[in-house]
């Protein structure tokens, strides 16, 4: 295979002191100009493999040839790093300097390139990623997506043959994610750069030329996205997910509809289903979906009226984070708040337990006015539990038990009660008290840490739980578990408010949604009602679930699809009803 730019033969890697191999006899090759996506649950060896490609680590055994070089000496390593650039996950932690263009120049400066050439290449790279106008900006003023584009520019300036993206979109919002993926795809097609794209997002993987699924350090599955995702059961068992349309196809097949393999996009599915429908049924006006919100609304435990919040008023940095926001949360409901980064979500939830106060507007929690001077904020924080984004970064105690006990001890409870609550909270997040209580929270895995952090809030036994992006950065299986866990908490009688930018997640869990855009409430209603605005939602950087899109497509094609359906099961049901009604032979 002379066309291979990456060639691995029996590559193994073991971290010092580790028992198992992190990369276990991996043999594969990547062709010049290919766009390969690498999938796998956390700890499957994806990131370690990426570091081997970049010669940040050297194989313990086996041979790895990257762009014709087998890294052995230090000089080889620098040659490999020159031809194989790497973009990391956290946009903040890979930018070295305080000015965008200087960061972009960093790699070339390290290589000792003449200044005039650096200048030219930096300008070219910034232009190529569309960041020229930010050349003099400070990275801390940029959005996550923009920072990642700067990171790509820094790599591009070195004129690499390969770029490895190690979960580079994991911490971005949907707009940033779309942006960075499109950029990688464009560089691949237009500049012929080989791309290795490591991700947890199946919709990104579906657009790659080829997929590699890793598990326990080995390559478990390999092939085109269609080939790999067609093995739905196997993919799910590896802790991953399949694109929504494949799931739907799987469901339809189980119900007796014979569909061809490899339908992956909404378009393909819609075309196939329309072809299937024999004997056109006259389009009837579609009935509205039955209201999913409970008919009798509970007591309003949170009531926000006309809330406006301005940051740093009177300075040049003045910005309106919230603009006349009104919303209410009925007791016992599961509420979703969606919006892109900077839409005001975080500011809003900070108001709900008095962390932020505003001059304009009122916030009531359990009928108590948070703006009043004599409000006991400790009692409010007791009633409203707030779990911030990446809560595991707030762990600090020596042991898990002590960390979870932090909240209850601040409430001044006695030792027995604290111990009882710690045990209960850990059980609620699915952790075994005996196993983890005396461990240091820093020894646990990422997912476990997050559970401990959530337990720390649950131990205060709040009647209302607010979570900001609880599933961010988790792999698909971790994401499913986390959402199940939150649903469990909701079922135990807690009112839940979940902030997210994943329409799939809120669609799956929530009774009612509030869509925030630029500090204002753009839409409210049941998920089904909100998803009807798919075009407008797309414009403000949000996407509706694929099944909602399919339902619309089919309705427009004359299918009788109830308005506002979006769950895979409901859509499958409606499709079957249509096909069975429209044809005599039952597929």
């Amino acid at each position: 295979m002379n066309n291979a730019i990456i060639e691995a033969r029996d590559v193994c890697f073991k971290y010092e002191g580790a028992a198992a191999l992190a990369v276990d006899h991996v043999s594969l090759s990547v062709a010049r100009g290919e766009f390969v996506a690498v999938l796998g649950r956390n700890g499957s060896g994806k990131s370690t493999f990426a570091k081997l490609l970049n010669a940040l680590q050297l194989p313990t055994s086996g041979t790895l040839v990257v762009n014709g070089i087998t890294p052995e000496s230090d000089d080889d390593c620098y040659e490999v790093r020159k031809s194989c650039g790497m973009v990391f996950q956290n946009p903040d932690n890979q930018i070295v300097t305080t000015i965008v263009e200087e960061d972009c120049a960093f790699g070339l400066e390290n290589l000792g390139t003449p200044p005039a050439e650096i200048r030219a290449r930096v300008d070219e790279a910034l232009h190529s990623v569309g960041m020229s106008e930010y050349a003099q900006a400070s990275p801390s003023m940029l959005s996550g997506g923009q920072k990642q584009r700067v990171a790509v520019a820094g790599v591009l300036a070195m004129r690499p043959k390969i770029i490895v993206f190690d979960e580079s979109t994991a911490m971005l919002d949907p707009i940033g994610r779309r942006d960075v993926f499109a950029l990688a795809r464009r560089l691949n097609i237009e500049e012929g750069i080989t791309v290795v794209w490591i991700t947890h997002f199946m919709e990104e993987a579906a657009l790659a030329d080829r997929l590699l699924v890793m598990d326990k350090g080995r390559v478990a599955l390999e092939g085109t996205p269609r080939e790999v995702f067609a093995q739905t059961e196997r993919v799910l068992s590896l802790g991953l997910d399949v694109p929504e349309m494949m799931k739907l196809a799987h469901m339809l097949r189980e119900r007796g509809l014979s569909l061809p393999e490899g339908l992956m996009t909404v378009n393909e599915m819609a075309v196939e289903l329309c072809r299937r429908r024999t004997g056109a049924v006259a389009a009837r006006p579609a009935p509205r979906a039955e209201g999913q919100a409970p008919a009798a609304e509970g007591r309003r435990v949170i009531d926000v009226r006309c809330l406006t919040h301005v940051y740093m008023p009177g300075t040049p940095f003045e910005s309106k984070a919230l603009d006349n926001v009104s919303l209410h949360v009925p007791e016992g409901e599961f509420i979703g708040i969606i919006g892109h980064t900077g839409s005001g979500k975080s500011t809003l939830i900070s108001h709900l337990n008095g962390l932020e106060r505003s001059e304009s507007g009122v916030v009531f929690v359990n009928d108590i006015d948070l703006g009043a001077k004599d409000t006991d904020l400790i009692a409010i924080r007791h009633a409203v539990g707030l779990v911030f984004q990446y809560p595991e970064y707030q762990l600090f105690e020596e042991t898990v038990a002590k960390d979870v006990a932090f909240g209850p001890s601040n409430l001044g409870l006695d030792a027995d009660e604290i111990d009882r609550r710690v045990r209960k909270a850990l059980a609620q997040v699915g952790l075994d008290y005996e196993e983890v209580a005396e461990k240091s929270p820093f020894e646990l895995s990422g997912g476990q840490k997050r559970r401990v952090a959530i337990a720390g809030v649950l131990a205060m036994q709040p009647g209302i739980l607010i979570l900001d992006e609880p599933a961010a950065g988790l792999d698909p299986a971790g994401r499913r578990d986390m959402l199940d866990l939150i649903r469990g908490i909701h079922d135990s009688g807690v009112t839940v408010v979940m902030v997210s930018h994943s329409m799939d997640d809120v669609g799956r869990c929530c009774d009612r949604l509030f869509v925030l855009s630029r500090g204002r409430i753009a839409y409210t209603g049941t998920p089904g009602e909100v998803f009807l605005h798919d075009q407008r939602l797309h414009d403000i950087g949000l996407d509706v679930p694929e099944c909602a899109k399919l339902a619309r497509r089919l309705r427009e094609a004359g299918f009788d699809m109830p308005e506002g359906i979006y769950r895979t099961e409901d859509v499958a049901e409606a499709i079957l009803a249509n096909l069975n009604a429209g044809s005599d032979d039952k597929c």
Partner: protein
Amino acid sequence: MLKNMTLGQYFPGESFIHKLDPRTKLLATVALIAIVFVAQGFAGFIAIAAFVLLAAASTGIHLKFLFRGLKPIMFIVIFTFVLNLFFQTGGNELVRLWVLRITDDGLRMAGFMAVRLILLVVCSQLLTLTTSPISLTDGLESLFRPLEVLHFPAHEIAMMMSIALRFIPTLMDEADKIMKAQKARGANFETGSILARAKAMVPLLVPLFVGAFRRAEELALAMDARCYRGGAGRTRMKQLKYGVNDLLAGLALLALLAMVIVLNIVHAF
């Protein structure tokens, strides 16, 4: 929202002084401080003050920012003034308060010290107001580079300073987030005895440090991935270059020095 604030006190601008090479500004500041100590009479100080004020006015920065830096050291200025006033006992007695006597020598000395201190601070203010932290770092690196022969780690120090500047806003932002999260768990950072408040900082500081180490590790990896291997063999995209303006600035300083010396001699009778 802390991240939206400008770092240090740099005031972006396009004036003559803004555009000087940072090395020129650093050296000029040192030179000005030296000249302040060369001056032996009020005439000399007036000349220096006029020079500094003229320079400051040319930058377009409001004078109140120039003097804002004086506030924290006002106590020291007053303290040295009073100390000199009462303990410099030579010369003719002007006033006598019980055991304390104020002499003309004492008054002169006290005045000198106060004026010198104020001029020192104003000069360095002018430097930091017109030079971005990053170009200050570049200037320092370039000035100290010759010392690398003596194994002075000029590049490493400059790199550390620049990374610190890069991460201060990020860490401030993170501190803000952690503080909110712990407050949401009932932590109290505002009230209580000093000891209680110091203890209350633990839930803030531990995650902040852990986070800083995590970031440092990731950053080191990212720097490695971009072929960083220390200062040796490294080039810079932006080369510092002295221009005509830098020469003019140097000449202006020389003129000031000459004037101060002349005034010293004239004043000494």
